[in-house]
């Protein structure tokens, strides 16, 4: 290139424009790569669980209890039964309380009070689950011993803020014309809530409950010092109860390969259960008009 008397201003400008464009493309590439990375990590984790869990699974795996302490073999029947029972009881405790809190917030509370309750629920949702385990230990287990009921209480505390907040959001989505129409027809407030608002919002409430149950099903920390593990199938709420997360947690540290394999099988069962619950929740929310 020959020397120019005056540098072409457009040359500089196009160079800068090109640089700006390139920076833009690079950053967009980085953002895309990050999204791909997240999906890849998910695929790798689920892939390893499936790859290592599938060989451990056969019919006996679901129908037999785990062989005691470090012995290989046996299945996860009692862990599955335990998880289902614990979740059922925790749901039975958390849903009425969460529903009432949501009704209070949307129907009765002045804005300030409603805000304070929302804040409290969000803070409760942020309490580490291991601290909830210590709380339940201190409240229920000390003096009475570990029990399935104590563990279910811990899970219920995990579920409560999730259900209350999600239910409140669904109730707020109910068109106010419905509420006003009902009140204008002379229905009382309680009747409006029970026969107009709740039926309209039931789909979203079911979704919220399933999502919360799926979250609680994977929790280990509130169970560690409250339910203890056992090698028997147990239906008694006052006794020890095994569960999938605790079974996995205990099996991982075993030096025996077969026991670690059992952990992978249990992990596959747990992850499938949670993914199915989430999928089911999505289907319910798609079919309902609200939520």
């Amino acid at each position, binding site marked *: 290139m020959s020397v120019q008397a005056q540098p072409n201003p457009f040359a500089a400008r196009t160079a800068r424009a090109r640089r700006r464009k390139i920076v*833009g493309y690079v950053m967009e590439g980085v953002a895309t790569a990050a*999204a791909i990375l997240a999906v890849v990590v998910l695929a790798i984790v689920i892939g390893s*669980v499936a790859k290592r869990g599938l060989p451990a699974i056969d019919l006996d795996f679901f129908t037999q209890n785990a062989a005691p302490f470090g012995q290989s073999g046996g299945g996860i029947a009692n862990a599955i039964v335990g998880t289902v029972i614990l979740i059922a009881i925790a749901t039975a405790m958390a849903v009425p309380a969460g529903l009432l*809190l949501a009704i209070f917030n949307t129907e009765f509370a002045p804005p300030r009070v409603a805000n304070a309750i929302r804040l409290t629920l969000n803070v409760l949702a*942020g309490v580490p689950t291991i*601290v909830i385990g210590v709380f339940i230990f201190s409240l229920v287990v*000390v003096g009475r011993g570990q029990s399935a009921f104590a563990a279910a209480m811990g899970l219920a505390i995990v579920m409560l803020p999730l259900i209350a907040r999600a239910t409140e959001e669904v109730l707020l989505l109910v068109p106010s014309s419905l509420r006003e129409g009902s009140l204008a027809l002379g229905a009382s407030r309680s009747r409006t809530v029970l026969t107009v608002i709740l039926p309209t919002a039931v789909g979203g409430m079911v979704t919220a409950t399933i999502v919360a149950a799926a979250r609680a099903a994977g929790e280990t920390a509130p169970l*560690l010092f409250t339910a203890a593990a056992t090698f028997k199938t147990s239906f008694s709420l006052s006794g020890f109860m095994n569960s999938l997360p605790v079974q996995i947690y205990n099996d991982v540290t075993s030096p025996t390969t077969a026991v670690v394999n059992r952990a992978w099988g249990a992990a596959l069962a747990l992850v499938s259960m949670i993914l199915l619950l*989430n999928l089911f929740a999505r289907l319910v929310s798609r079919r309902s008009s609200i939520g």
Partner: protein
Amino acid sequence: MTVRNPTSDLDFHLAGTGRRRLGDRALLGAASFAVAGLVLLMVLLIYKVVDQARPAISEFGFSFLTGTTWNAVTNQFGALDLIWGTLATSLFALVIAVPVAIAIALFLTELAPRLLRTPIGMLVELLAAIPSVVLGLWGIVVMGPFLQAHVEPWMIAHLGFLPFFDGFPSAVGLLPACLILAVMVVPIVASITRELLSSVPSDLKAGSLALGSTRWEMVRRVMLPQITGGLAAGVMLGFARAIGEAIAVTQVIGGSLVRPENIYGPADTMAARLAAQYAGTATSLQKASLAYLAVILLVISLITNLVAQLIVRRMQRKLGAP
């Protein structure tokens, strides 16, 4: 002058039969009962955890926070190394997770084709649905050995000149714990950031583009400055999640009693120590000391969450949302 609620007034005059008002009162009563229960639960939660820690609090006081011994034989307990481990893992996890999470949120709000937004957004959220015990199992069996064999030797060779990065590869330790925590934090921060980004008014974005910005310049100069406050709140929520995670961390961190000399070595966090030792303690003072750790975690999480909520509320008021 008393102002009466018009609705209840109407109820009273028009059709105030006893039964109706009874129904309303019963519903209000039940709902108020639930609120009282929530308040009681919060108070009890704090009281009972502190109560459990009382022997350790009266024995060690605040020197618990600066002590470095954890010895059940001599009954000496101090939390400094654990506090260090908790902060180190959580902060390093945030350093990895926050940029990735923001990038994912940008991809999902600005770049992804409409058809891909929902499914990819769903997959990122699914990452949060994987139970921590399963992530820990994967971390200890798959990721740890992989890091030890392939990643850590490379890091030692190329980053070893940095103070904390020289050492020996290890399958369990600080690094796997940070990475597992990062995997847990990413979906939280990403979903909050995504909501924030989609709340940026489109006329601001259009204005920036019309002035000749590239898409990245619009993001960098217009969108990100708009959401700084909310982003800070999201990062704090991610931090709260990371310090409280017990199960996955205790599986991969190695449960060391002393502070590690480098990022590869075994360490321990408050939550992980609680998960590992609370069920089988040697002395009652050890149990109380572990509960003291729970008190510290509780205090940090309460403060972090409260501040984050208040920031979010201020943001919402600014944006004019309810």
